């Protein structure tokens, strides 16, 4: 023990330690929620695609990173344009987000038209491979043709660096914004599926493709809308990633896509609520394993994939999934 300092009583060290532990715990919960929100949105996209077409679109991760690049590029142009008032700036930034989201959605529709539709009656292996190919192409195009695309990019700071204190936990404005975006998006998805006509079309084709077509539902249009929305969700997750971590790189999409797919499988492929649950479960596992297992942060992905493997062995249908019957 050090000599010169008054030795703190045992009580107070315990108090400080306990305090620090609980703060770390709260921080981890915050991190998990931030990460889980991203995974959930990507996973909902996977679930929608799978429901509509019975295909897994492996380039979801590419949509995610594509949107981040488009958004960041346009935002830095805006910031370079000179000083605008905070209200004008906010409106334009929002418009930019909306625009890049829609652009990504259109790319999603384009991908469906060109590389998924031709394989509608082909073996299921084909769309897996073709969408992986699309993912590689998008990623490489970003790397090669975006200015300095192979280096890590910085997402522009658009929110003020202040925040609120919740007890001892500091929550910044950008984190609050992410939380708000997540809730709004989830409500919007719920509204889309339950309350709109085209949403009910999407549900109908996911229940029975042929019967839906026979009932006069425009199947192609419903699929197009599904892909637009799925890619938009990936785009929103991409923005959240950019806002929260502020640094991104062209090859981050692949991992995010695979995590999102894993989350949708853990939750039960085909179920939107399952995708949200799966996303948060994966995020919590990953974050807590990284924080509390020694040497865990370098191999944090091992834990989330471990959860996935566990589910595939013990409960392949996922948390909410129905047990699939073999179709002959």
């Amino acid at each position, binding site marked *: 023990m050090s000599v010169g300092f008054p030795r703190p009583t045992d009580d107070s060290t315990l108090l400080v330690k306990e305090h620090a532990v609980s703060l770390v715990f709260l921080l981890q919960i915050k991190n998990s929620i931030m990460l889980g929100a991203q995974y959930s949105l990507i996973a909902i996209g996977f679930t929608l695609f*799978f429901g509509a077409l019975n295909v*897994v679109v492996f380039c979801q991760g590419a949509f995610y990173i594509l949107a981040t690049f488009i958004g960041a590029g346009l935002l830095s142009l805006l910031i370079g344009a000179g000083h605008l008032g905070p209200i004008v700036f906010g409106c334009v930034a929002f418009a930019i987000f909306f625009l890049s989201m829609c652009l990504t959605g259109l790319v999603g529709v384009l991908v469906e038209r060109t*590389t998924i539709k*031709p*394989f509608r009656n*082909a*073996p*299921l*292996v*084909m769309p*897996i*491979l*073709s969408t*992986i*190919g*699309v*993912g*590689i*192409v998008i*990623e*490489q*195009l970003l790397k*090669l043709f975006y200015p300095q695309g192979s280096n890590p990019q910085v997402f522009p700071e658009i929110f003020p660096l202040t925040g609120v204190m919740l007890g001892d936990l500091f929550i910044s404005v950008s984190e609050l914004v992410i939380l708000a975006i997540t809730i709004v998006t989830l409500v919007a998805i719920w509204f889309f599926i339950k309350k709109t006509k085209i949403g009910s079309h999407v549900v109908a084709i996911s229940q029975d493709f042929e019967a839906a077509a026979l009932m006069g539902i425009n199947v192609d249009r419903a699929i197009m809308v599904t892909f637009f929305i799925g890619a938009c969700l990936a785009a929103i997750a991409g923005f959240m990633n950019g806002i929260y971590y502020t640094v991104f790189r062209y090859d981050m999409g*692949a991992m995010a896509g*695979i995590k999102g*797919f*894993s989350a949708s*499988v853990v939750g039960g*492929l085909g179920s939107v609520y399952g995708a949200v649950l799966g996303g948060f479960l994966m995020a919590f596992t990953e974050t807590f394993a990284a924080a509390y297992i020694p*040497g865990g942060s*370098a*191999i944090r*992905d*091992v834990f989330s*994939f*471990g959860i*996935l*493997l566990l589910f*595939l*062995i013990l409960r*392949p249908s996922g948390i909410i999934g129905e047990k699939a019957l*073999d179709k*002959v």
Partner: protein
Amino acid sequence: MKDKSSILTGFIFACAVFAAVIIFMAIDNMAFSLALILFYALASILLVKTGFWKKVRNSISDNPKKLCLLTACFVLATPLFFFNNPYVLHILTLACIYCVATIGLNIQVGSTGMVNFAQGAFFGIGAYVSALLGGHFGVSFWISLPAGMLAAGFFGLLMGLPTLKTREYHLSLVTIAFAYISFLLVMNFDWTGGPDGIADISKPVLFGFKIGQTVTVGGVTIPGVAFYCYMVLAFLGIALLVAHRLHNSWYGMAWNAIRDDEISSRCYGLSLRKSKLEAFVFGSLFAGAAGALYAHFIGFMSTENMSFQIGLLMVCMVILGGMDNIAGVLVGTLLLIVIPEKLRAFDDYRMLFYGLVLISMLLFRPQGIIPSKPRFFDLKKRV
């Protein structure tokens, strides 16, 4: 009864391909090799359109033994042309090593219809086990190679177990998860060298002769790569033989049956569990052997060579060549290794090239360059 087609067509074709390969490999100028690639592509399209290709195929299938012998002679003669150019030999050896791995992958992707993205991981497991045994315990290459194969086979079995309940996407997801998990673990263990990898892996020694040392015989300098190239060719020959026999055995039949219809093959009494696990184990054995050959060839092994991208690249090779066709897989692997090496200046565009090749093959020619033939049974000959 159809007349047997003459061996001459096949002979001419083999000679032409041999000459084309030698010319292509010998050229060092990039613009010229680009022109040559275009020329070859046009020539092969012309070949198919004029119907010459059908004659060639008939000729090959009617005289398989003689033409195989001829091809083997050509393949063995190829390194002789490049004794003064070790770089070409290096590429050829690398391509042959990858061929061994993709032949194994073809068992899973082509024959059984299970898209496995973890072949890169098995490649790495074979390489690491072999290199570590040689480096830490001084085990000879001839023991560490089978050890690497067995380790890869064991992990193949381990990965096969969770895939038994899954199909299609879920199966691919299991293999992707396995590829990432093994990559991350190897990257973060201390005894694997972590991100630094393993350096100074010794070359194999056969009867006191170190394969990979330069030898001068009667004024002719034979580069060390040439010996290694011949050794890899021997391994490739064994791998081809094994894969061919497997394809024509009940194993191959069972795998094809599972690919075509799981439920009906189960109704006919096939054990899906057993057949699928066999496909995984056999495929990983090939990958393990390829990995061990690679580690001892380059002399350095790091996690970069066992990443998910390598597995993806191998799947591309199988798709390009033709699923469930061993000759096609060889062609696909050679093309995807050699062409990017020849166009070195476009190295940044390599992954883009792979992605575009994958998409365009799936869209325009999903059966691959050389499609697999339907199985043909002659009861009298008992093929």
